[in-house]
């Protein structure tokens, strides 16, 4: 995988210019340059574009400028030149019909919104094809008035929108293993995505049903073949949980829960139950299989943690990242994504020397509550090996732990909620690989 094909002659000119200009702008070891460099010197764009040699010297009129293209279409599709930007659904398992996951190609996307067709998936019994006219959402249990809602009725409720991440608690779980897996940002960390979710506050529907005073938990159940269910504390349910009907402005995709799903901000993805058909109020959790047998973590002393809902503060570098190949020496941008289930990202630091020295990255504007933040830091690679690590801090002061800290806390038997710092090793020949420090 090539990050950038470059022209060596032009590059060395840029390099020597950089060399003299950046001597006192180095902010941490092994080539990290102040995040203000590109603005301050105004040569970041020049440095990168001057080095681009893909076009060659032939500036004749291209064919597409000489004949009309196809006209408007009903539903736009990506250019065929980006057809390789795909989720990775893997092979179907006949013993687990419809089950499995596909991961977002984080290393091929920019910005902070995940396109709907590339939002990660996790299904327990496949994607049901639901006719919205025949879909019922009912609220029962400890309520004054058990109610059923149809899709048309739900569309008439006032809705609110939130741009927030969703992360599977199994994301990055491979990094618990003893040996560092040779993977990409997608294959290791791709069970996180971010979208604008639009829907009805669950509290509005709960109010209509009248929650009994003794109720403390809400059970949410989907209409898929697994009838997947999860229990959520009522306190959270009336705080910020949405009954979501739209994702990035369009009706939910089938694999994201069409026609209606729960969206539980900041908490492990599994509780945002898709294809939502039932909300049941109770005094205690329902103890579903997916909150007892699964989605629980066993500690070293063999006790197991249950209802570990919030996703911890986390960041990942998406470029350079696993299985990429740096082609030439020179200026690169270390880029990545950061998020926290507790709130917003206040700081991301980057190290290029395995954690010995750190520099603060620039965070793109609008790093909102429980949304993805994108960070960047210029870095000059001169052909020496480098160990790239990012470390996020949220607005509550939670700091992303090291892998050793996380393992010390959770032990070797844990599988879910891996949020530790990850390291990409850049070898002297430009190969990028997942590693442990």
């Amino acid at each position, binding site marked *: 995988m090539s990050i950038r094909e470059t022209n060596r002659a032009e590059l060395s000119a840029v390099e020597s210019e950089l060399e003299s200009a950046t001597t006192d702008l180095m902010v941490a070891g092994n080539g990290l340059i102040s995040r203000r460099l590109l603005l301050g010197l105004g040569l970041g764009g020049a440095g990168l574009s001057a080095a681009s040699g893909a076009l060659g010297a032939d500036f004749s009129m291209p064919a597409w400028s000489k004949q009309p293209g196809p006209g408007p279409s009903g539903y736009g599709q990506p250019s065929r030149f980006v057809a390789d930007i795909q989720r990775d659904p893997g092979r179907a398992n006949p*013993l*687990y*019909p419809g*089950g499995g996951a596909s991961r977002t190609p984080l290393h091929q996307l920019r910005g902070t919104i995940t396109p709907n067709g590339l939002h990660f998936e996790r299904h*327990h*019994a496949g994607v049901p094809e639901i006719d919205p006219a025949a879909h019922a959402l*009912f*609220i*029962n*249990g400890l309520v004054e*008035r*058990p*109610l*059923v*809602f149809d899709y048309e*009725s*739900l569309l*008439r*409720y*006032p809705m609110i929108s939130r741009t927030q991440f969703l992360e599977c608690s199994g994301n990055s779980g491979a990094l618990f293993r003893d040996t560092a897996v040779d993977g990409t940002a997608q294959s290791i960390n791709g069970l996180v995505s971010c979208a604008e979710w639009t829907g009805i*506050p669950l*509290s*509005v*529907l709960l*109010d*209509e*049903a009248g929650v009994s005073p003794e109720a403390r938990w809400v*059970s949410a*159940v989907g209409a898929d*073949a*697994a*009838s*997947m*269910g999860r229990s959520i*504390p009522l306190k959270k349910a*009336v705080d910020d949980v949405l009954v979501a009907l739209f994702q990035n402005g369009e009706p939910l995709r089938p694999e994201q829960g069409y026609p209606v799903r729960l969206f539980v901000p900041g908490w492990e993805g599994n509780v945002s139950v898709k294809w939502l*058909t*039932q909300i*049941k109020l109770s*005094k*205690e*959790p*329902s*103890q*579903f*299989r997916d909150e*007892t*047998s699964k989605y*629980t973590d*066993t500690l070293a002393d*063999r*006790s*197991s*943690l*249950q*209802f*570990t*809902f*919030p996703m911890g503060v986390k960041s990942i570098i998406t470029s350079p990242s696993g299985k990429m190949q740096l082609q030439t020496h020179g200026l690169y941008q270390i880029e990545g994504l950061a998020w926290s289930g507790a709130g917003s990202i206040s700081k991301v630091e980057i190290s290029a020397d395995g954690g010995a020295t750190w520099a603060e990255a620039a965070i793109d504007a609008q790093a909102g509550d429980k949304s993805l933040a994108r960070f960047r830091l210029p870095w000059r690679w001169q052909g020496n090996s480098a160990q790239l690590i990012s470390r996020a801090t949220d607005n509550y002061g939670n700091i992303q732990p090291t892998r050793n800290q996380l393992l010390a806390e959770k032990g070797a*038997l844990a599988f879910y909620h891996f949020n530790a710092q990850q390291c990409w090793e850049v070898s002297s020949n430009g190969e990028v690989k997942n590693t442990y420090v």
Partner: protein
Amino acid sequence: MSNVISKSALAWALYFALSAPLAVAQDILGSPQLGNPVTQMDLSELDLIASKESVLPAGSGTAFQGREIYAAKCASCHGAEGLGGAARQPLVGGNMKTEEAPTRTVGSYWPHASTLFDYVRRAMPANAPKSLSNTEVYQVIAYVLYMNGLIDQYKVINAETLLTLKMPNAGGFIDMSASD
């Protein structure tokens, strides 16, 4: 359906929103209150939650009765003796205290017996969920409990006896929800 909400109605809503708690605050969103009343009877087929609080259905079964159903509908994935089989999802065995990397099964890990009824009824067998009758579910879960040595093969499992059955790892979980 052409009711236009007047500005004064909104003003009143705002007044109440500022002076009253949550419930009224939501009225300002103009909840149209479109839910239709439904009874638990209406939901008898759709509400599959089986827990301490949600009454389990009528019916009963023993492991002796469940043996054949297990062999026909479960063994191909979970193994004839529930040790994992082709799907590598063991139901039997494991020990949370003594194994270095504990095999987490119904017997060794699951804290509540009600989960077994709840899950099998809603999701198993994976290729034909909800194809078992309630009686068959009681029978086959009795067989899984029997394979784990938790009951004998003639113990009658029903709504009452299932909820009184104490699972070996019942005390093994720490509820983290309070710390959120």
